[in-house]
């Protein structure tokens, strides 16, 4: 390890050489096995949700959007099945982001970069694009041969390339198309898109996302993970010695020899490893690395090399999982003759789970008890208090009433505090019996100017707390907030 370095070896960079290293194209081989099946399943699920969710309907009553998941930007509303969020409730998204981040930490401490290998959109779409490529152009060897061939292009080859790119573009186009459907009523938008009636912005977004999907999944592929994504760097700092990473169990694999030689040496009673140096694990790797060199930043933990090696092991009659989800501690332990230990429940995972449970639980609680009637009050700052001609003191407030329900509501507003306060809403004359009433249309806000007056003889103190009540006359639901009444 600590060998002395000759200074001349440090000066290997060549000033007049190429400015960057060219990409070595990766030709992942197809593989069958447990992890490949998991990946197919997750891909089908994720893409299915993404592509079809906008078409799921949800009945919210007349006049309200009937799309289950809808981001209604013009009206600043977010709909998710039975949940409807208003702009002032964006903290739910903050909560969601925190939960997502901690969930990522949790995944990492349990299984390393399983997010990257199975769920990351870049992985999922790249995988899909590879599947198309394999279907059209054949598996690894064929593709390598075709790319290398310097023959003038034959019609067959050209048609293959055209077909591949057309399918890619169609997938990419659908990806961009599904995106915009989340922002508008899907069936209507589809109709508008086909008849070229849709807003320009929809076409622009489809174009952008078609282009990014096509380029990122079709051409950039593993380079996104290696050079563009910050997550590999971050996850290195998040992972710990107990996290299960895709690991080549070199204690079992070394020394590598060919199948034949291994049999001979074993017969002689010599120690040989199980790895037969067949390079199957390298051939299937979508990032083109050799996992036998130890954990590497490029590895997205997709487990495909596990499947590849398992197949080899089965064929040569050795136990599976020469490559598997494991950690270096166990390799050490096995070498010392101890049994491997797996520890999923550790302080780290417990803390992460607790954070997720607390924040998630709090969000669910607030969502469940979310009130559909709300009031915000803003005291006039300029002037804070006004003296009236009879000597009484008046404060003005801007009151914002929120009716988050699906029906119009008639509400009464009153203010109570120590002094004998009277309330008046600018523009409302009818006061029944002695408090202003107003209708707030459904799913909207109303802003009012509220004047609160304390009589001269009450001689109010410098600042007294006031409670504002907004009462739904029909349902009796009350929203309350407090502010201060100020005397000059």
């Amino acid at each position: 390890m600590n060998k002395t370095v000759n200074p001349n070896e440090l000066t290997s960079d060549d000033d007049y050489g190429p400015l960057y290293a060219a990409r070595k194209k990766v030709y992942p081989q197809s593989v069958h096995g447990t992890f490949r099946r998991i990946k197919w399943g997750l891909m089908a699920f994720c893409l299915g949700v993404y592509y079809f969710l906008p078409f799921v309907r949800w009945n919210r009553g007349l006049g309200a959007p009937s799309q289950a998941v809808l981001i209604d930007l013009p009206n600043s509303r977010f709909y998710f099945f039975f949940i409807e969020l208003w702009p002032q409730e964006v903290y739910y998204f903050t909560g969601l982001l925190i939960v997502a981040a901690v969930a990522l930490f949790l995944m990492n401490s349990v299984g390393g970069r399983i997010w990257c290998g199975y769920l990351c959109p870049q992985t999922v779409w790249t995988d899909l694009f590879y599947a198309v490529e394999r279907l059209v152009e054949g598996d690894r060897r064929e593709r390598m041969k075709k790319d290398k061939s310097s023959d003038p292009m034959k019609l067959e080859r050209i048609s293959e390339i055209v077909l591949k790119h057309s399918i890619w573009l169609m997938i990419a186009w659908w990806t961009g198309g599904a995106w915009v459907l989340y922002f508008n009523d899907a069936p209507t938008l589809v109709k508008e898109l086909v008849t070229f009636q849709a807003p320009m912005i929809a076409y622009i977004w489809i174009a952008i996302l078609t282009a990014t999907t096509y380029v990122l999944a079709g051409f950039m592929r593993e380079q996104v993970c290696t050079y563009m994504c910050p997550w590999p760097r971050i996850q290195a700092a998040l992972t710990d010695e107990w996290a299960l990473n895709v690991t080549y169990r070199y204690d079992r694999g070394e020394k590598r020899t060919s199948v034949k030689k291994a049999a001979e040496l074993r017969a002689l009673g010599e120690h040989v490893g199980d790895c037969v140096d067949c390079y199957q694990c390298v051939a299937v790797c979508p990032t083109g690395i050799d996992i036998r060199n130890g954990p590497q930043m490029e590895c997205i933990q997709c487990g495909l090399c596990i499947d590849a090696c398992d197949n080899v092991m089965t064929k040569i009659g050795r136990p599976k999982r020469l490559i598997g989800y494991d950690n270096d501690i166990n390799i050490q332990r096995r070498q010392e003759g101890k049994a491997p230990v797996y520890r999923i429940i550790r302080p780290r995972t417990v803390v992460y789970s607790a954070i997720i449970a607390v924040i998630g639980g709090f969000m669910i609680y607030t969502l469940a008890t979310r009130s559909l009637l709300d009031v915000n009050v803003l005291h006039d700052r300029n002037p804070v208090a006004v003296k009236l001609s009879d000597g009484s003191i008046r404060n003005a407030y801007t009151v914002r009433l929120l009716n988050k329900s699906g029906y119009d509501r008639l509400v009464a507003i009153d203010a109570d505090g120590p002094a004998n306060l009277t309330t008046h809403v600018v523009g409302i004359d009818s006061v029944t019996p002695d408090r202003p009433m107003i209708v707030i249309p459904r799913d909207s806000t109303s802003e009012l100017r509220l004047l609160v007056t304390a009589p001269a003889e009450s001689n109010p103190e410098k600042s007294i707390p006031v409670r504002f009540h907004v009462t739904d006359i029909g349902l009796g639901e009350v929203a309350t907030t407090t502010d201060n009444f100020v005397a000059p």
Partner: protein
Amino acid sequence: MTDHHGDIDSVTGKSTTGHEWDGIKELNTPLPRWWVISFYLTIIWAIGYWIVYPAWPLISSNTTGLLGYSTRASLAVELANLEALRGEKMAALAAAPLADIQKDPALLALARAKGRTVFGDNCAPCHGSGGAGAKGFPNLNDDDWLWGGTLEQIMQTIQFGARSGHAKTHEGQMLAFGKDGVLKPDEIVTVANYVRSLSGLSTGKGFDAAKGEKIFAENCVACHGDGGKGNPEMGAPNLTDKIWLYGSDEATLIETISQGRAGVMPAWEGRLDSATLKAMAVYVHSLGGGK
């Protein structure tokens, strides 16, 4: 870039630039080609920019550029677009009678929002940004209105002003009883104290109420009315309430009576369009709830 200066650094084996500071030599490490190319491209881009857009200041103007672009023109376009965007709503505001604006929540909200900004631009210098007023400039949040506090009266005051020189302006002023020699100094003191007594304020020692009442009746009732209740027709303030535009202490009252007062409110008609004037009236009316 490939000038070696014949000086090779022994450690790295690279050529140096020949520059040396305190025995430290600078290696000649060329920039990446793409970097150099983008550098030259930005220079070419900049030159193109000079030609296409206005760039060079001349003595009294500037080069206008091939595109004839100007920020002022593009601002004008944007403002016009904005006007067009708001056109329908503002037209509704211009068409609606004052009283109807208050009854329609959408129009009211529009008028208040518009009124607030226009107020900030035009009225705030005198009345304060929140309409709280100052000495000599009425507070618009209270319930005391010199020229009347109904929507129509407020509208009229904004349109034509007070002593503004406009043909339809509010006229009438507080005479300078001292300067013009109508009242003698001791009479002024007496009537000042009498006026304070009208709104329940304390009076000075040896104040003769009967005399004060007499002076008031002879000189002030014509404008301020019987009992000093004021007269919005003439902008004569109510002297019995707790609100004093110029101050209620004895010295201020003496000054007011001696020198007279004639605050000026400019006429806004002609400077602002009718929809804007209406919005302002509605906004001011809603500040204190009007009358």
